[in-house]
């Protein structure tokens, strides 16, 4: 094989699994290190630069980083990355105004309209205001926040945290127009904005069209609309027995909210077995901890109405044949009537754009949603951009934030008359972390501690009101232990073949046998000769230049390396060095020069 080119930022970026998995590329190991040093404010600001809402995401992020965490490869649970983010948000300085982006008094004369005050639009405004743009956000509801406010119950995300982090953006001098739904795209375009960003989310909950739906409608609710009505205190109670249809994260929020509005017996009815659930494992766990019953293999058949009132639901009981994780056959084995007072449908959501005229020159696809470029986030109508759930359907907050960052760059380039596709590259900086002969400026000793468990408010205290936050946050002791679990994947093992004397010291000390010295061969043979069998082919393989003495090559399976730096400690010639990789992801302000 040819020597690996590690100069491309992607190579080392991929090694930092959490950062690679995070859509907004938050530098997780670095902020965990800052937390370990007690620099909570710095950790918070560093988070804010990439993910904009650290306090919010530290509670409710979908955490794509955690399944990717390197710690998970050692038969252990991943580092509690998300909850450590909350630690930074909880313990930072009250007043961070001096650390937020500076907004120029003199504007650049370009006006941007943003539709919907959710995470996508707020991110776009957050990126464009410091450049000098004038942003106007149109929000249909009485308060900003979008889905974060309407769909995430306050026992998971306290209003104070939400208000504070949204205010950091709205206080930048944004013209925020609440209770101002946009009824016509054409009308908005006629107002002469330089660019329009659509961040209106996916506000349409999916229906369940089975017999009895019409007649029982007084007690059959659409999940996301129902959560919104609870959030604005229009709905304050629910029946004693509640059925939730669907088993995604919205279903989890619906069942737990029901318990706080007076329900005593809540069942989540799932059509398929547990392996096929859409909800995140931790959300399922939290719901089950509150004694929500999750019933699998029940497919809705009809609503049962007696005297014009919903009294229950009939389900088909289904059995599945599963092969290699896929359903190959299903068989209805019977049916059952489950009595209930209310039903909440949490079957997913869609975006809908009844307010965009179809004769504006904007192309719509076969599902009647606008065609949006996946890099520039521009629709086929120049100057109109989409992001968040409005762009490619429901995802989650952290994706919406990244869409916002990218759309902001496009909007800037559009307004300056530049090519949207000529975007700045990601930059990488490597710096040695060597302090002395065998000393590094990071905590490299492998800590075998298990993941700390998040403490929750007692069950007896939880259901008194809607706003008691369930998770208590990590204690100082838990934080101290959890930060040490991070393996410092951003401190890269960098190899200099010209220095190597082939003494084998690194190969012998490596606790995971991720290093191999072998005659060079083609990819297949080289993989065959690895000391530890290759388990994950997605992860990069490092092949060095030819070594001086025997003309062999050093091969490293990045998948197995735990960044303990013992190879570098044992190397007599410093052929291995531990170097911190720092990536710079360009934002709108960088494009503005």
């Amino acid at each position, binding site marked *: 094989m040819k020597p690996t080119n590690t100069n491309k930022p992607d190579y080392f970026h991929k090694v930092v699994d959490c950062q690679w998995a995070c859509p907004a590329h938050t530098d997780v190991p670095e902020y965990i290190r800052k937390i370990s040093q007690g620099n909570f404010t710095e950790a918070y600001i560093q988070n804010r630069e990439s993910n904009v809402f650290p306090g919010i995401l530290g509670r409710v992020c979908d955490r794509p980083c955690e399944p990717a965490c390197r710690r998970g*490869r050692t038969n252990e649970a991943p580092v509690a990355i998300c909850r450590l983010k909350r630690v930074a948000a909880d313990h930072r300085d009250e007043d961070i105004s001096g650390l937020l982006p500076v907004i120029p008094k003199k504007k650049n004369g370009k006006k941007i309209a943003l539709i919907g005050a959710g995470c996508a639009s707020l991110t776009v405004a957050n990126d464009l205001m410091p450049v000098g743009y004038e942003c106007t956000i149109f929000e249909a509801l009485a308060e900003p926040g979008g889905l974060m406010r309407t769909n995430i119950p306050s026992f998971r995300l306290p209003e104070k945290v939400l208000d504070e982090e949204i205010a950091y953006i709205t206080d930048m001098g944004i013209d925020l127009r609440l209770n101002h739904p946009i009824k016509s795209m054409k009308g908005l375009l006629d107002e002469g904005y330089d660019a329009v960003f659509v961040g209106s989310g996916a506000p349409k909950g999916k229906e369940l069209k089975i017999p009895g739906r019409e007649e029982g409608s007084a007690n059959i609710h659409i999940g996301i609309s129902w959560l919104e009505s609870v959030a604005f205190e229009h709905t304050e109670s629910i029946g004693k027995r509640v059925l939730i249809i669907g088993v995604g994260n919205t279903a989890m929020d619906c069942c737990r909210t029901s318990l706080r509005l007076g329900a005593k017996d809540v069942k989540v009815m799932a059509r398929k077995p547990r392996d096929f659930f859409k909800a995140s494992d931790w959300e399922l766990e939290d719901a089950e901890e509150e004694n929500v019953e999750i019933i699998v293999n029940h497919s809705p058949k009809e609503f049962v109405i007696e005297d014009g009132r919903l009294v229950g639901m009939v389900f088909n009981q289904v059995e599945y044949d599963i092969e290699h994780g896929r359903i190959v056959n299903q068989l209805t084995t019977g049916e059952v009537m489950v009595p209930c007072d209310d039903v909440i449908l949490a079957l997913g959501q869609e975006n809908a754009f009844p307010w965009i005229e179809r004769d504006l020159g904007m192309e719509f696809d076969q599902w009647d949603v606008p065609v949006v470029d996946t890099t520039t986030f521009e629709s086929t109508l120049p100057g109109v951009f989409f992001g968040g759930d409005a762009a490619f359907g429901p995802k989650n907050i952290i994706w919406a934030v990244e869409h916002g960052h990218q759309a902001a760059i496009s909007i800037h380039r559009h307004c300056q008359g530049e090519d949207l596709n000529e975007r700045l590259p990601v930059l990488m900086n490597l710096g040695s972390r060597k302090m002395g002969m065998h000393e590094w400026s990071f905590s490299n000793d492998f800590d075998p501690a298990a993941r700390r468990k998040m403490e929750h408010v007692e069950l007896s205290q939880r259901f008194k009101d809607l706003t008691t936050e369930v998770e208590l946050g990590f204690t100082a002791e838990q934080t101290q232990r959890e930060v040490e679990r991070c393996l410092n994947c951003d401190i890269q093992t960098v190899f200099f073949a010209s220095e190597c004397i082939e003494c*084998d*010291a690194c190969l*012998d*000390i490596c*606790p995971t046998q991720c290093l191999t010295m072998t005659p060079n061969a083609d990819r297949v043979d080289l993989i065959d000769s690895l000391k530890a069998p290759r388990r994950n082919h997605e992860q990069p393989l490092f092949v060095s230049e030819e070594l001086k003495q025997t003309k062999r090559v050093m091969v490293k399976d990045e998948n197995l390396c735990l960044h303990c730096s*013992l190879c570098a400690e044992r*190397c007599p*010639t410093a052929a291995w060095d531990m170097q911190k990789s720092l990536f710079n992801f360009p934002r709108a302000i960088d494009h503005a020069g």
Partner: protein
Amino acid sequence: MSFIRKPRIDLPNQRANAIGLLKQDYEGGMSTLCAGCGHDSITAAIVEAFWELSIPPEKVVKLSGIGCSSKTPAYFMSGAHGFNSVHGRMPSVATGAQAGNRELICIGVSGDGDSLSIGFGQFGHAVRRNLNMIYIIENNGVYGLTKGQFSAAADKGSKAKKGDINQWKNIDSVSTAISMGSSFVARSFSGDREQLVTLLKAGIMHPGCAIIDVVSPCVTFNNHPGSTKSYTYTRDHYHPASQTDFVPQANEIRASYAEGESIIVELHDGSKLLLKKTDSGYDATNRSSVMRYLEQQRARGEVVTGLLYINAELPEMHRIYRTSDTPMKDLEYEDLNPGSEELAKLQARMR
């Protein structure tokens, strides 16, 4: 050296040997040798050999004298027995251990100073008695622990780190051992893991004293230009005389070899050594031709490696002494001490 221990990490799909142990189970304490020391490589090779042979660590006794090399038994098989003896006196303690419990697998780790200077006499007698052990000489040509003076193994004309030229002829452990009647003599290099592990396995299974001299560069005091024990010099002059395959008892010899190109040596437990000649005419079972060959290659300045001489038929110490098949530690007190009556009878026989 490093200041943190190699962590024990629970990885999925780790391979266990025939007795269910992981390679980690054959490791020892944290090495305090210099970073890049050849000795650490040899330690790793020992771990690999014992793990591959599935020998329970508690069936092993590790013995050593004094020196950098003699520290290393602490770095492998924490579960084995061990004795760190006086300088150069490892073979005496090994003799005692063997006499007391012949079932233990005995591994002695010594250095060129420990065996060829202060312990030269002991070394000779261990070879002569054909003590059933594996005797490793970690040979770096210098006294590393006292800051790099030439040892008796340093080649004449080689240069010390500060520039001194060695004026004395070296003692060659390999030809010395052969001339003293050794049954198994090999030379290897810490930088050739594959060869070293095979030789260690062969040595462990060999019924008698298996001498393995391993060139093990001292990165701190003897790894510079002008040294004849450096990584570069050894690799440049490296010359394997034969290639050894170790075939465990249960396995058949699969590959076919052309007549005259390889020699098969059968060991007492039924395992076999397959010696593939790389130099034509080299016969590791013929003592006089081996001596001639070694002399010839020495004149060329080559570092000859591989299994250089073997005679699996030579009786080891217990056979020569006709001792009890039961290890002495397992004999009943009455058998070991039959009483004054028996003593009187014995003495009567000698009057």
